[in-house]
């Protein structure tokens, strides 16, 4: 039992980190009023790019960074379409998924199925990692895990305790009022989407460079869609996203552990838990009339000054 727990908890952060990063990225977009359905495609491009650079001999840190940049690059047409041309966000986001998945498949062919040495856990004295239950959880993790948690805290600070965060959130809630208060709506939206794409890219690159340390098509495996659900589950708060990522990542991490035990596990039902949990949460929230709407008021809609 202890061994099981240790192994499970030890693997958990690795599943949590990419979900957390992608969700944080989405949070920035959605807090600015933009629904970015393209996550799955962006993560794919970042994962592929990270793998290519890792295979090319660049260090894992550099590979992850470049992967994130690739994520930003592929998101730019989406940003321009949605912010400048007021294109409807849902089909634009779906288009980004297609472009991202297609590009990662096409450009990643040469790098596919080639394992490499990716991001390694931070080295601690051996005896620490052998502590029961928490040993591997605390002392066998890579720095991206720590970074993702730090970024969540930073995001909270940035969004709720700074002037720019206030202005950003105002745009997502009520762009007309923000505009009247002198906020440059388009500028902030670009900024939010850039940061968002970068974070999503970090999450995607983590999947290949730190996670499986290989690139295969379809390796994002729906984690982009899960992140969309996670943001709703977390009710648009970065710290709750940590909780959600731990929950969803934990469920994901459970599967290989249970299989290693040789248990007959309804693997697929387990994988459904994040989705079902989110639907359940949505239902509860909509049924409870007391909770005031946490969703950014103008999410998904295009703002033009004349509509004021």
């Amino acid at each position, binding site marked *: 039992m202890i061994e099981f727990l240790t192994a499970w908890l030890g693997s958990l952060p690795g599943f949590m980190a990419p979900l957390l990063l992608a969700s944080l990225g989405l949070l920035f977009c959605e807090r600015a009023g933009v629904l970015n359905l393209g996550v799955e495609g962006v993560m794919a491009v970042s994962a592929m790019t990270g793998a290519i650079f890792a295979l090319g001999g660049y260090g894992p840190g550099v590979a992850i960074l470049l992967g994130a940049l690739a994520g930003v690059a592929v998101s730019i047409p989406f940003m321009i379409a949605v912010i400048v041309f*007021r294109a*409807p966000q*849902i089909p*634009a986001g779906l288009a980004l998924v297609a472009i991202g998945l297609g590009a990662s498949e096409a450009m990643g062919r040469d790098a596919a199925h080639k394992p490499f040495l990716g991001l390694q856990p931070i080295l601690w004295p051996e005896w620490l990692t052998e502590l029961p239950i928490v040993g591997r959880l605390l002392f066998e993790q890579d720095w991206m895990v720590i970074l993702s948690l730090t970024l969540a805290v930073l995001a909270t600070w940035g969004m709720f305790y700074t002037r720019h965060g206030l202005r950003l959130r105002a745009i997502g809630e009520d762009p007309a009022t923000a505009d009247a208060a002198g906020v440059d709506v388009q500028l902030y939206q670009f900024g939010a989407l850039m940061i968002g794409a970068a974070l999503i890219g970090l999450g995607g690159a983590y999947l290949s460079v730190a996670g499986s340390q290989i690139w295969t098509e379809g390796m994002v495996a729906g984690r982009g*869609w899960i992140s969309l659900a996670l943001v709703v589950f977390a009710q648009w708060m970065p710290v709750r996203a940590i909780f959600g990522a731990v929950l969803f990542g934990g469920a994901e991490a459970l599967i290989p552990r249970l299989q290693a035990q040789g248990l007959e596990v309804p693997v697929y*039902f387990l994988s*459904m838990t994040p989705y079902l949990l989110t639907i359940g949460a949505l239902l509860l929230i909509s049924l409870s009339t007391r909770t005031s709407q946490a969703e950014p008021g103008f999410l998904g809609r295009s703002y033009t000054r004349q509509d004021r």
Partner: protein
Amino acid sequence: MFERVTLERRAETGALRSALVYVIALAVATTLSLGVMIAAGVPTGALFEELVVQVFLSEAGLARTVTMATPMILAALAAALCLRLKFWNIGIEGQLIMGAILATAVALYDIGGAARLPVMLLASALGGALWVAAPAILKLRFGVSEVIVTLLLSNVAFLFLQHLLFGPFGDTSHNFPTSPVFDETEKLARFGYGDTNTGLIIALVAVAAIALVTHRMRFGFAARFAGDNARASEALGFNTGRIMLISILAGGAMAGLAGGVIVAGTEHRLTQVVGLNMTFNGIIIAALARNAPLMIPIVSFFIAGLSVASASLKVFYGVSEGIVLIIQGIILLTLVTFQFASTYRVTIARQRPA
């Protein structure tokens, strides 16, 4: 940011302007797509051969195209029926999968006796409708965003499919996750040209039926009003909520039927890839067809042709199948970006406003 440029929502968009914008958008999209293909390694000279001749002008190619188009027509009908009501059905794939699952269940458990095939198809439609019912009700009664819920359920459906294929529905005689092959009575009749089958008839009948209802029946009339202006529709006394629910369920049923047609007509069994990319295919076809039922078969034909071409491009020129996805994404993105020209009027001020 762009202070000098003011955007004003147009009060009305003439038909001519709309049409022009659409055509230009298509032209740009086509150019970009061809560019992508060339960049991916398709020799310019081969473009026409691969995209037109092989796909539409050869018997085998045509057969493949028609076969691929058949479920796409139904998926696009699903998208269009929902989109007309401003209901974003991102879960078409999931509804399709559930339809395929129910049809397969009927086949595997030998339900229905002599009416096996009709029961399979009915079950598939039912599966799709049921799978869209929850998001529909959540949206109509509680205002919960359908985008997230249809998406989530789509993923759940896929996982359920996996579970069934690796479990109770799996064909134990080999190692691949597919169901056993259906019996003869469970297959849709073939025409003798490649894999083309009576599923095509079903799809076209569905198109005709929906076009008929939309333009010639009271229900369709009400649905058109409800989708265009729900408030006016309420004020006129139409039971808007019920109309919208029925339309969305019908959309789900179309998606489910697409699943039924794939398993009973093309594949003759249930596989993991039964719903692959079908949400996206449905949405892009509906967008290109501007939600008009009668345009859908034509557009489906071309999108299917693109998919068929990509298979051959892969074989002959080593072009990845991802290129098709990129192209579809570019087409959709271009189309919605150009909508800007129909919706807004741009004025560049000579000085700062006011």
